[in-house]
């Protein structure tokens, strides 16, 4: 069985599994990191949104064989550690300050997408405004969208 090595939340990981198994299941079912959630398996609900080398992606749609040993995969569990100084990432803190989450199932993906969107806007010299936030495709079936908007704007100010 093929062996795969990559970095997950700052640590090297090693797993034996067929190349075509999607990274989401490798992370969740084999490595036991359960922050990224299953919501569709076809890259439309975005509940599994994580980062690869700092950019948002959906591991439900990436075969583990496509991941390189040098790739750094970050899930919600590793987000805080990407910030200097310890403690929560400013976006996580903004989420708490705005009491965004309802059931919480989609929220790891929402936060990971929000962080990447803010970075993308900064890189492109754009405002993190309603138009930018409306590019986010993450579904929240509890309908917390308006609190998500407020939290993203607040979190962006501290990023």
């Amino acid at each position, binding site marked *: 069985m093929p062996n795969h090595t990559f970095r997950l939340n700052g640590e090297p990981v090693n797993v034996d599994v067929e190349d075509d198994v999607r990274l989401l299941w490798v992370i969740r079912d084999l490595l036991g990191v359960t922050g990224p959630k299953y919501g569709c398996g076809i890259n439309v609900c975005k509940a599994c949104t994580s980062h690869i080398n700092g950019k948002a992606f959906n591991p439900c749609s990436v075969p583990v064989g496509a991941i390189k040993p040098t790739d750094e995969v970050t899930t919600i569990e590793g987000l805080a550690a990407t910030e200097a100084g310890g403690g929560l990432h400013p976006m996580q803190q903004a989420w708490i300050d705005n*009491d965004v989450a309802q059931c919480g199932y989609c929220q*790891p993906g929402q936060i990971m997408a929000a962080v990447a969107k803010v970075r993308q806007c900064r890189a492109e010299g754009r405002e993190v405004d309603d138009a930018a936030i409306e590019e986010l495709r993450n579904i929240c079936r509890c309908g917390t969208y308006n609190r998500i908007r407020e939290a993203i704007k607040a979190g962006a100010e501290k990023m």
Partner: protein
Amino acid sequence: MPTHRATTTRSRPTAEPAHRADVKRRSFLGLLVAAPVLVTAAEIGRQTLVDSVPDASAVALPSAPQPAELYDLLDVIRDSARPTANLITVKVNKDGTVSFALPRSDNGQGIITSTQMIIAEEMNLDPDQVVVTLADARPELVFNQLTGGSSTTFSTYTPIRVAAALAQGRLLGAAANELDQDVSVLTSRQGLITGPNGRSLPFGDLTAKAAAPVTEAANVVLKQREKFTVIGKNRTKSDALAMVTGKKKFTTDLRIPDALPTVICRAPDLNGFPRSVGNLDAVRAMPGVTDVVKVGSGVAVRAKTYGQAIDAVDALEVRWAAGTVPGADDESVLRKLRAAELPLAVPKGVGTTLESDTVFYFRSNSSLETNCAIADVRANSATIWGPAKSPIAAQNDIARKLGIPQNAVTFHVMEGGGSFGRKLFYDAALEAAEVSKAMGKPVKLMWTRADDSRQGRVHPMATTRVRANVVGDAVASFEIRHTSVATETNPGLSEAITASAQKAPGGNLTVSESIWETTQVTPYNVGVSTRFLSEVDMRFNTSSMRNIYSPDVATARELMVDRIAAQMGKDPYEFRSEFTKLERWKKVVDRAAKEADWGKSMADGTAQGIGMHVEYKGVACAVVELDCRPETVNRQIRQARTGPRVTKVTYVVDVGLVINPRGVRAQMMGGINDALAMTLTSSLHLTDGHFVEASWDNYFYTRQWNTPPEMNIIVVEDSDAPEPGGVGEFGIAATCGAIACAYVRATGKTPTYFPLDHKDPLPFTPYPTSPPVPPSPTNGLETTF
């Protein structure tokens, strides 16, 4: 036939101030439970602050009070719990914390947090010092472990307070002994009881001394509302940190030994079932696969990863039996509904007759966490983990299915990833038990999104017809006939309701009639006011989707109200304000209009709309602004519905006593976003015996690009109502009505069906029904940002 003028509106002569005064004096009965540490108890449902059934003879209203005004679904659920002799208990632990196992299901609605607040209030603690967990299934509670109908806080508020107050009293008594002081000079704050000399003792040191040697009843007086310091204050959800760090565990996140991922291969038809499998051995040999077995609803695959289980599911060659609705489509179901429609009773021609006939298509209540459960079935026992709003019924059904006694089934109630009525049922738990037994191994069973969307439970298709007779400035009659594919009520809910519903005026009703009669109120003085339900059993998988009948009925009702207002030459807001029945309701309508700047100038193609709704011991009024201009309606977003956009919502709600205002606003926000979906973008299309929509790129629940940029939710803080009402479903119906009315005002067109886009061309190519699960893409690294 009597007609009635709006000027006869009056407030119901309630004696609510007196009720509040009664609360101060009244004592409640709780129990001290013999235990090594302090344990106090109270009976759920036994005690309430006020008699919830007002005296109908004291009320003289132009439209006779409807059953739901006097005795609503909340009363039904609470009263069904009254005879239950068993108890909820508050325990003071030696580490100073206070613990409570809530016999309810939290799927995000925040009842764990509000329960912490209720206990903290009575015991003068910080809510963080209260540990609330969800109780395992406890069959002795009978009807008392049911989460539904927005009833949790309404039915648990007082009993929890009684137990907590009793505990506080015992701790004070024990401290008085220890400190050799009179109880009246002691203060209790944050788990520390302090005497006048400054010496203090923590709860943890007192609990053994306060414990009861024998179980005995005890009276207790509750804290006065005027002294509340926790209840009524904004509080962030207790699991907020766990949720934003990925630490909150849902069912499929659990690591139960040997409970491997398990997926069921399901039929192309709704409720089809397997006859035979052609390639069992080949699929058993696929990578990662450990077991493949045919079960009732399909063919179950257990594998090392869900991905491998899904690949195996899609590789199965199954011969399927037809489903329960072979060949059916939207049109054939509509014909059956038409055939079942009840006649309207009041003849046309009394003054001006206005009629409407609106179709509401199927909608999905699939939550983001799909149906799931873990089962470990052994020879004579079973352990189940899963979200469940009626775990006792689940435990009972599972025991029956496995042929073991009910008490041999342990059901651990997990926090769910959303419910919206889905988790009143326990389809996955029942299947997981069946599969675990068949395989002889633990399984972690999860429905795929395609299954959850196509085979999962739905809000039934329905028609609502309304006829109103208008005579001058008065309404002579207002009749509603709602005809629906049957809404399946689960065993837990139906047994609770049939045990109590005969108490409702009119009595002796079937389950669905009971829910209808105890939830539906036409909140206006409109003369002869009737509302009837007829249901057709179409063998669909349905459930009480959030707010049950009300989103559809309110849409049709509020549209008719606007037409009546127009017929009279009145403004839609002014009509509602004049014709609503009670002063408490009128206050909310007036506040909404004021906050929303009702009547302000709006651009062509945009309009305000207003809708009100009465349910759950409360009243709500929504004012929306809707943009129907072509540049908005036709905006293009990939894999999305756009259409008319709600640009602003003002929502005023009076839900009685508010425990956590922030939690109430959150529930309203979710309900408002549901209303957008129900009215504008979200429906299932039935074709050839199955639902077309297989995922979130087919089923268009509200997204960021649909949600209102402005939302102003106002929770009435000085409600006359002395008790908490229901919150979880109360954002939807009024908003649905307001959106529908705004659409008519913006476009001049009155819709005949909802959601508005149901008959538009599908903005997607449907996924095949066989293989059943759309394959995961492989190009995820091309869409990073």
